[in-house]
């Protein structure tokens, strides 16, 4: 049965269905509905909802709950995510699974509450300190937002790597029909023998990212990076749309991805052979599939709600095999399909 839901609400409900039982937050627009939904619904499922005194506290509560072995999540929007970065680095270092939702708004600084994609670097290239990665999933519809939140919990548990769902204000605020995924039965959630449950009948468990011995710590990080390589092999996800005969390939994710779908349809109606490549995992980024397409499509036009962040990964994938122009909007302005189409026309037959 389809129900009309905001992206924010769909993500909250999906988290509950994924077995999230501890949610910690601090209010910020435009993800307020996610917080409100959790406040109303999570306690009814026996879960913990707690509004923390800050984003910093909220992510550290997530750290504690994750260490205790439960599925846990926090959500925020760009400025709040900046504050969470300390805790995210600790989660990554201590190999704790957790889900972080970023409903992006325009920055830097206080910026505004309109949709933007300026946190791509922060999400995929670090953000917090140290040598780590996050699994980063970018939904483009409320439906996909729900599905990717559930996937984020699964991947995070499987690899013991924190996962971020990177949405934006438009996706969070917008209502769409959603067919909610079935709840995950508690017995399907993986056992966590490393969790802090009290050292009864076993030796003590320690959750830590601390090791003063560089050689020993190097081994810890080598294991971590082996896991990252495994994720890169197994978990790359993307969507291709009308790429077979394309002369120009739009590359866009999230909200821009769905808008570019419309651009492809409009372009095709005008006889322009345009396709779309939409990364779903921003990390691991789909370098290989994009590289293959760049071997036969001469122009890859990246479109983002930023000054060009994913664009760098597109160019890394393409490595000069095709032209890689860029079109972006700044400050929370969302380009219309027609505006993007006229940009397409500049490149499609020149």
């Amino acid at each position: 049965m389809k129900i009309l839901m905001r992206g924010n609400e769909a993500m909250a409900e999906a988290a509950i269905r994924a077995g999230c039982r501890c949610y910690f937050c601090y209010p910020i627009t435009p993800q307020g509905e996610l917080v409100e939904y959790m406040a109303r619904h999570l306690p009814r499922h026996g879960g913990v909802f707690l509004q923390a005194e800050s984003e910093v506290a909220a992510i550290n509560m997530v750290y504690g709950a994750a260490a205790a072995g439960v599925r846990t999540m926090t959500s925020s929007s760009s400025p709040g995510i900046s504050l969470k970065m300390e805790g995210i680095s600790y989660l990554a270092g201590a190999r704790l699974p957790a889900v972080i939702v970023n409903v992006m708004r325009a920055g830097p600084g206080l910026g505004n509450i309109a949709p933007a994609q300026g946190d791509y670097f922060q999400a995929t290239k670090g953000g917090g300190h140290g040598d780590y990665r996050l699994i980063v999933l970018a939904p483009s519809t409320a439906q996909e937002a729900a599905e990717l939140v559930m996937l984020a919990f699964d991947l995070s548990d499987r690899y013991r790597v924190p996962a971020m769902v990177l949405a934006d204000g438009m996706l969070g605020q917008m209502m769409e029909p959603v067919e909610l995924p079935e709840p995950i039965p508690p017995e399907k959630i993986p056992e966590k023998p490393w969790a802090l449950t009290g050292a009864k009948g076993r030796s003590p468990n320690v959750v830590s990212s601390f090791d003063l011995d560089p050689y020993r710590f190097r081994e810890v990080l080598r294991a971590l990076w082996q896991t990252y390589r495994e994720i890169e092999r197994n978990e790359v996800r993307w969507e291709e749309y009308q790429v077979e005969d394309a002369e120009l390939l739009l590359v866009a994710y999230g909200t821009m991805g769905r808008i570019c779908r419309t651009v492809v349809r409009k372009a095709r109606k005008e006889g322009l052979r345009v396709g779309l490549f939409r990364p779903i995992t921003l990390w691991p980024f789909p370098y290989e599939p994009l590289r293959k397409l760049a071997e036969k499509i001469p122009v890859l036009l990246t479109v983002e709600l930023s000054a060009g962040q994913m664009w760098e990964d597109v160019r890394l994938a393409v490595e000069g095999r095709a032209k890689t122009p860029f079109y972006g909007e700044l400050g929370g302005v969302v380009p219309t399909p027609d505006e993007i189409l006229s940009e397409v026309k500049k490149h499609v037959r020149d």
Partner: protein
Amino acid sequence: METGVIFAGFGGQGILLAGKILARAAMEKGFEVTWLPSYGPEMRGGTANCTVVIADEPVGSPIVDSPYVLVAMNGPSFARFLPRVARGGTVIANSSLISERKERPDVRVVWAPMNEIAQELGEPRCANMVGLGAAVKALGILPLEAVISAMEEELGARGREKLVEVNRQALLRGYALA
């Protein structure tokens, strides 16, 4: 087919609800649909608007530059959105609250005394349903019955079953106007 409707007015006029009911009706009828509010620090008495896109293919952008139908429930929204309405489109304008009656030669403007009708029905808060009823007629892609049942479900979900009948009347009155 992809068509956009903008509902605009004061906060507190039930703008977002009117849009949501339309979106829900379209969903029930099997259309692809998006509903996008203007979000932010908007309080009662401020401006509010939302955009509904109804299509038979997945909706790309939920933002609409040129709506096919505009429901303008107050003067400032009428002035702001009239220039953006698509050629050949329709504006449902609340004549109860709009004093400056601008027109456009390429757009049909339906003047609807939404507040007066709501007063007549004995429920001032149902002016938005008058506007929605007229919009449904102007759109011409959904039967009014679908919108009425979406309204019933919406109000039922909010525990406002008592208001269903008066809102149904308001939808009918609006539908007859356009």
